[in-house]
């Protein structure tokens, strides 16, 4: 083997790989927009000089853009721009009509929606009742595998005509109609069987009816949206939205300050800097997220957590104010699963466990664990969780409870929790538009904590059947809150805040519930 032929062979290998590479490169559907400074030409008719593009620095990619298949908030913030729903909650958590123009309830089991007749899909086809029926039929079909199935409390859906849809429930259910806020997908494009091979491109190139249409989504890079000019409420002011994925908080912050992105979620420790900076607007907004130190009420192999005294001791032993203030400075302490400030929350009925290590010790003594007790907490391995774990460990150590931290990567922790293979866990729950959405997680032992209290079961099940009388429902939830907190159902911990920052020249009305829907009316002042 001489050198020349060796060299020759290497050259051939190199050339082949180069050709292969450049061929791959050219299969790109469209060249990536130059990230960082994608200034678009202003729209004809827009105020002279004002920008009409927005560069958004997002934390994470959606998992899927088929709205029937995702519950990710990163997906929802995009779906809100691309799709529409029959109804949606506004910033006061009151339902507003979107695709619907009205709703009739001839009896406690029936909901009839009339639809707008001027709505078109981004491909020009009209949006009709048949699309609504298709969407809900696929969601309700068990074989389809939608995560929204058990969160959609209706049993049948049918089109009465092209613009009227009828939903029915089996039993009266006060939480039924508010669950009809799913995004509607086009029957002529969306798949009916998402996991069959080659079901098309809908989950990553969806066609919706919203104010923006999706141009391109390159995973872990960017999602490019373009204004849909025939939007039924009139076109948006922004022409393009480039949502770039920038996972590192400090990078997003640096890019915001450098002006390479206009709108982002900055790291918590930079909030004060941004509030003081006149070049940026920062808005804080309360979320509907509940983070407890949750208790397994059906832990196989040990019944120590079934003793109410031990559960109360777990509550008394933690200085929740100090912990939350230290680890999550923007969050507030919670005392029961219903978010403070929403209609069903009852402050008076809630028993609040103040920090009282002496009381905790005494309760442990009474329960027969004066000599100590070992408990394990399962959670994902985020920095905040580990910090929280260490603090909790030291507070519990003071009263004689040895807390073992079992931290692991998120999906592994989730698997353990859903399998009931834990004593305590720390992870969030989201999405309370109706109090039933939260309270139903604590009845009949079906929730992740397997909490099962006959009186609470009865109250919650009775409350959801009361239609049209919020005060009567509220009274039942108040009683349930009193029982659950006195029974130390969990160690409730915190309700988180969300914050967003953007260029002060950009006019945008942000809050956690309406989220990116309001980008439709957002604009640049100059």
């Amino acid at each position, binding site marked *: *083997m001489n*050198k020349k032929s060796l060299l020759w062979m290497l050259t051939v290998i190199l050339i082949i790989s180069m050709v292969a590479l450049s061929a791959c490169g050219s*299969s*790109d559907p469209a060249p990536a927009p130059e990230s960082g400074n994608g200034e678009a030409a202003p729209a004809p008719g827009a105020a002279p000089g004002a920008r009409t593009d927005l560069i958004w620095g997002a934390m994470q990619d959606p998992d899927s*853009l088929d709205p029937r298949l995702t519950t990710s908030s990163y997906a929802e913030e995009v779906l809100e721009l691309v799709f529409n729903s029959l109804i949606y909650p506004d910033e006061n958590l009151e339902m507003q009509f979107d695709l619907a123009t009205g709703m009739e309830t001839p009896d406690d089991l029936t909901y009839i929606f009339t639809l707008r007749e001027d709505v078109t899909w981004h491909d020009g086809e009209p949006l009709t009742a048949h699309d609504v029926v298709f969407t809900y039929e696929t969601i309700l079909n068990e074989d389809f595998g939608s995560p929204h*199935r058990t969160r959609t409390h209706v049993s049948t859906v049918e089109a009465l005509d092209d613009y009227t849809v009828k939903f029915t429930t089996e039993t009266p259910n006060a939480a039924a109609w508010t669950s009809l806020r799913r995004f509607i997908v086009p029957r002529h494009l969306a798949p009916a069987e*998402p*996991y069959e091979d080659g079901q098309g491109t809908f989950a990553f190139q969806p066609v919706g009816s919203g104010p923006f249409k999706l141009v391109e989504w390159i995973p872990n890079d960017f999602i490019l949206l373009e204004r849909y000019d025939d939007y039924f409420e009139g076109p948006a002011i922004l022409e393009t939205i480039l949502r770039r994925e920038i996972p590192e908080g400090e990078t997003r912050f640096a890019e915001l300050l450098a002006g390479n992105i206009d709108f982002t979620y900055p790291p918590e420790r930079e909030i004060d800097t941004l509030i003081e900076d006149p070049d940026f607007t920062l808005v804080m907004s309360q979320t509907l997220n509940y983070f407890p130190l949750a208790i397994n009420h059906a832990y196989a192999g040990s019944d120590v957590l079934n003793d109410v005294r031990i559960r109360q001791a777990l509550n008394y032993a933690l200085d929740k104010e100090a912990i939350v203030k230290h680890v999550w400075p923007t969050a507030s302490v919670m005392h029961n699963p219903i978010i403070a400030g929403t209609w069903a929350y009852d402050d008076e009925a809630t028993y609040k466990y103040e920090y009282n290590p002496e009381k905790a010790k005494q309760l442990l003594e009474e329960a027969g664990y004066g000599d100590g007790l070992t408990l394990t907490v399962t959670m994902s391995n985020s920095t905040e969780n580990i910090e929280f774990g260490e603090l909790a460990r030291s507070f519990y150590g003071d009263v004689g409870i040895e807390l073992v931290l079992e931290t692991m990567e998120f999906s592994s922790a989730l698997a353990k929790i*859903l399998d009931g293979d834990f004593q305590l866990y720390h992870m969030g729950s989201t999405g309370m538009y109706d109090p039933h959405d939260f309270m139903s997680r604590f009845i009949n032992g079906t929730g992740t904590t397997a909490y099962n209290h006959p009186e609470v079961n009865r109250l919650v099940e009775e409350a959801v059947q009361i239609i049209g009388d919020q005060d009567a429902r509220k009274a039942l939830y108040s009683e349930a809150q009193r029982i659950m907190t006195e029974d130390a159902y969990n160690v409730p911990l915190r309700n988180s805040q969300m914050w967003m920052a953007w260029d002060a020249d950009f006019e945008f009305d942000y809050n956690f519930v309406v989220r990116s829907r309001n980008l439709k009316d957002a604009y640049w002042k100059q």
Partner: protein
Amino acid sequence: MHIYIMKRLLQAIPVIFLVTVLTFSLVHLVPGDPALMRAGEDATAEQVEAIREAMGLNEPIYKQYTKWVSGIMRGDMGYSLQDGRPVFSTLIQRLPATMKLVMASFIVSIGIGVPVGILSAVKQNTFADSFARVFALLGISMPNFWMGLMLMLIFSYSLRMLPASGSGTLAHLIMPAIALGMPGAGIITRLTRSSMLEVMKQDYIRTARAKGLRRQLVIYKHALKNAMLPVVTVIGVQLGSRLGGSVIVESIFAYPGIGRFAYTRLLARDYPMIMGNLFIFAMIFILINLITDILYGFLEPRIRYD
């Protein structure tokens, strides 16, 4: 030579088979699956089961594996369980960006490592040598996420010279390439230095000097080529790990490479995408090893392939 290459490629078949069996079982054994991820934090067990059924994850694992292998045989890597993207074309689309980053990082590693290593060996035990050795130590020991953030602090935050994230232009490539390439530069500096020192002591170098060749020529023509053997090995090894292992650098600079993509899909338990990725990586590793072995023969004619 051709026989050698054929032999090596045939040897690759059982390797690929073992790699896929092992990774397929490992990926499926790790707790958490795509159905769980889809169902979310407050799903019921029954709901997770329904999604699992719809995704086809309830079949016995050997059946899922044979299904996957028969797909590979037909050149079909399947579709993502997460967003339905075709696995092969999605992965291939991401390779060019990663290749660019890896190449640029090697320009940094080799461009700094080899000259500094030579300098350090030629000027052994001088100030330049000590400086080079400290530099190498720093390069190796600085974690690349820290270096990435420091670079960003200086060049994006303070000087506003370079974009802190994204891809597309040469300017986007500079900081990630430095962050990814510096540890390698340190290793290559040390390797070049030690193997140069060793080669410089050989008889043939003394002979070359004795017959009156210029010092420069001896260093670059006679010594360097022979000193490059361990360096080439390290480059081969690093090439593979940098293709997939640049997750941290890609995350800091939001660079759309294949490393971070593989990582996010791993966390999401997107089985077809993970397996496709591992398969392609296994192929690349085998190819790189083959090229490295061929290069040995070029650098060291005593190595024979028969």
